[in-house]
């Protein structure tokens, strides 16, 4: 019996190694789909899927951006604060001109990402420490800018609303944005040399540096990408909710990291794919939706969400090849 377990385990490890962890992501997604097909068929109603993927899409976008950062071996817990800050900066500008506001949102995202990256690469402070600090800085700054007031996204802001609430060919635009960005980043990761540099940096920083990869530049660009995507997610989210408050980004850092981890990205860096994150996003949204439709109540869902995150990561751990 022991031998059988070992051989199954070995098989799983082989397969997951070959497919870069995607196999496990698919497996988990498949299990969830089967469970909901049997017990909670209401999940598959078209309107439900549309709602769920649209509402959770901003979380997915943030996770896709964050995956790049995690792949380089760093981490960024300030993504939630970047979301809040982006909308706060744009709050006054909306009344002048909407395109300018949207440009400001993107600029804030890129700017804050650049700041994070710069500080981390120049001072060599560990990213977790630094981004915990910058989270407070960005949150505080955002609240100061708007005096903690709520900004309404009213009907006259047409671009924002049409992008956040609209659909193309029946697919919600936020979801499309998430898919397009994920595929784009996956392409960059696999096919361009920049992508290869990201993997090298994540796997072994020193070796990459010694072989001539400009790891500082790689990291800064990844942070900027993560910041930009967080800002875009903020735009889509506030468009859907119809307002933007100073608590817009609360909890998104944890959600994004959970999604990335669910998708097979290792927090040590160098392992995982953006497609995996996409699968993780679908899994997480499905999980939350199943719990909600099964009528467990908000708080039971919270508990089960925590348990499921731990369970899934445990399974990933089981299938990772042990190096020791």
């Amino acid at each position, binding site marked *: 019996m022991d031998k059988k377990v070992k051989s199954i385990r070995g098989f799983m490890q082989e397969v997951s190694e070959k497919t870069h962890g995607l196999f496990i992501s698919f497996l988990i997604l498949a299990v969830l789909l089967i469970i909901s097909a049997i017990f909670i068929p209401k999940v598959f109603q078209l309107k439900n899927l549309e709602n769920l993927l649209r509402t959770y899409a901003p979380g997915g976008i943030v996770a896709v951006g964050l995956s790049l950062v995690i792949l380089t071996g760093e981490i960024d817990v300030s993504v939630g604060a970047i979301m809040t800050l982006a909308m706060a900066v744009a709050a006054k500008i909306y009344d002048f001109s909407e395109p300018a506001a949207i440009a400001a949102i993107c600029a804030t995202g890129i700017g804050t990402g650049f700041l994070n990256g710069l*500080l981390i690469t120049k*001072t*060599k*402070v*560990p990213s*977790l*420490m*630094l981004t*915990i*600090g*910058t*989270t*407070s*800085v*960005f*949150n*505080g*700054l955002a*609240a*100061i800018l708007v005096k*903690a007031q709520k900004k309404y996204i009213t009907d006259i802001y047409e671009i924002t609303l049409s992008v956040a609430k609209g659909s193309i060919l029946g697919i919600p635009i936020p979801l499309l944005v998430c898919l397009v960005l994920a595929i784009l980043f996956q392409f960059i990761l696999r096919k361009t040399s920049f992508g290869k540099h990201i993997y090298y940096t994540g796997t072994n*920083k*020193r070796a990459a*540096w010694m072989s001539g990869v400009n*790891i500082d530049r790689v990291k800064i660009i990844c942070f900027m990408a993560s910041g930009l995507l967080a800002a875009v997610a903020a735009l889509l989210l506030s468009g859907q909710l119809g307002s933007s408050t*100073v608590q817009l980004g609360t909890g998104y850092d*944890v959600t994004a*990291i*959970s999604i990335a*981890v669910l998708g097979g990205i290792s*927090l040590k860096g160098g392992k995982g794919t953006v497609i995996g994150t996409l699968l993780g996003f679908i899994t997480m949204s499905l999980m939350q939706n199943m719990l909600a439709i099964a009528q467990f*109540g908000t*708080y*039971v*869902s*919270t*508990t*089960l*969400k*925590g*348990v*499921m*995150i*731990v369970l899934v*990561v*445990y399974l990933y*751990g089981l299938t990772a090849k042990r190096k*020791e």
Partner: protein
Amino acid sequence: MSILKNNKYKNIIRKQMLWLAIMLGLIIGRILSPYFFAGNNITVILYTCAIYGMLAIAESLVLLVAEIDLTIGISAVVSPALAIYLTNAIYKVSNNGEVVRGGYVTAPWWVIVAFTLLIATLIGLVNAILVVKCRVPAFVATIGVQYAVTGIGYIVTKGTPLFMTKVQGVAFIGGAKLAGVIPVCFILFLLVAIMFIYLCSSTKFGMRVYSTGGNTKSASLCGINTGKWKMFMFIISGLLAGITGVVFTSKLQSIDVTQTTGYEMTALAIAIVGGIELNGGVGNLKNTVKASMFMAILSNVLSMLGFLSYHQTFVTGLFIVLFAIIHKKSDSKRLKELNIVEV
């Protein structure tokens, strides 16, 4: 000659940075407000220092072994509530309902304290098993446990707060003050801090902890049971979170699960300001104590200035970034002297 002197002063500043910061804070506080050294105000500073300091020590211990624990905040807030309901269940079984929903608690205080510590330690144990035995990365494991405990807390209490004013002796730990100024919980904090500082610096306990954190692989090759030490740190951190929960309950004389918890982030921030490295093995608990005192003074001075809560968040964030960079600079200097190029 003058260059040497400069270096000496710079070294002193760098080594005693936190003390200087505390002094500066006190002076600025006195300048800004004549009430700064009033009894009640000092009490506030000591309370803040004690509560956040205890959580910071818990977090520091876990950081020293190269792990992280994000459950201490929610554990401090929820474990008293769970303890009460556990007591209630036990008493119901033996035919004597003690606690009624949304109402007043009438269970004996020592039972509540004992169960709180037990439950908090259990949460620490769950963390330990997940991280060490199941090999789940600490970040993810503690986030998962945090969600789970939050949910359980709400389910059990339905969000209703409990009043503790009728429990005999509840006010002592959180409320009583020596000489009317120094809270008892501050003394408790100092005792706990002294105990752990002693353990970490001068005993085998300390050596094991630092070795496990500094380089886990070589430590285990040397025969140290790193898994056991990591589990131990999680359990201790859970216990300290439980003690903090007891102090909260006593201070506010109520148990409220809806209390916001950013406490683990604050504890992490204090550990960072105190120079504990997130990769483990580096850092001194003495500095953690100084850092928590500094943060307490900082928040008090900011409140005196009339800063609103989000202004305080901003300024605190700036200080965290500043201190992280300063600590890293001194570490970089050390590495430079060893001719190690940092990447």
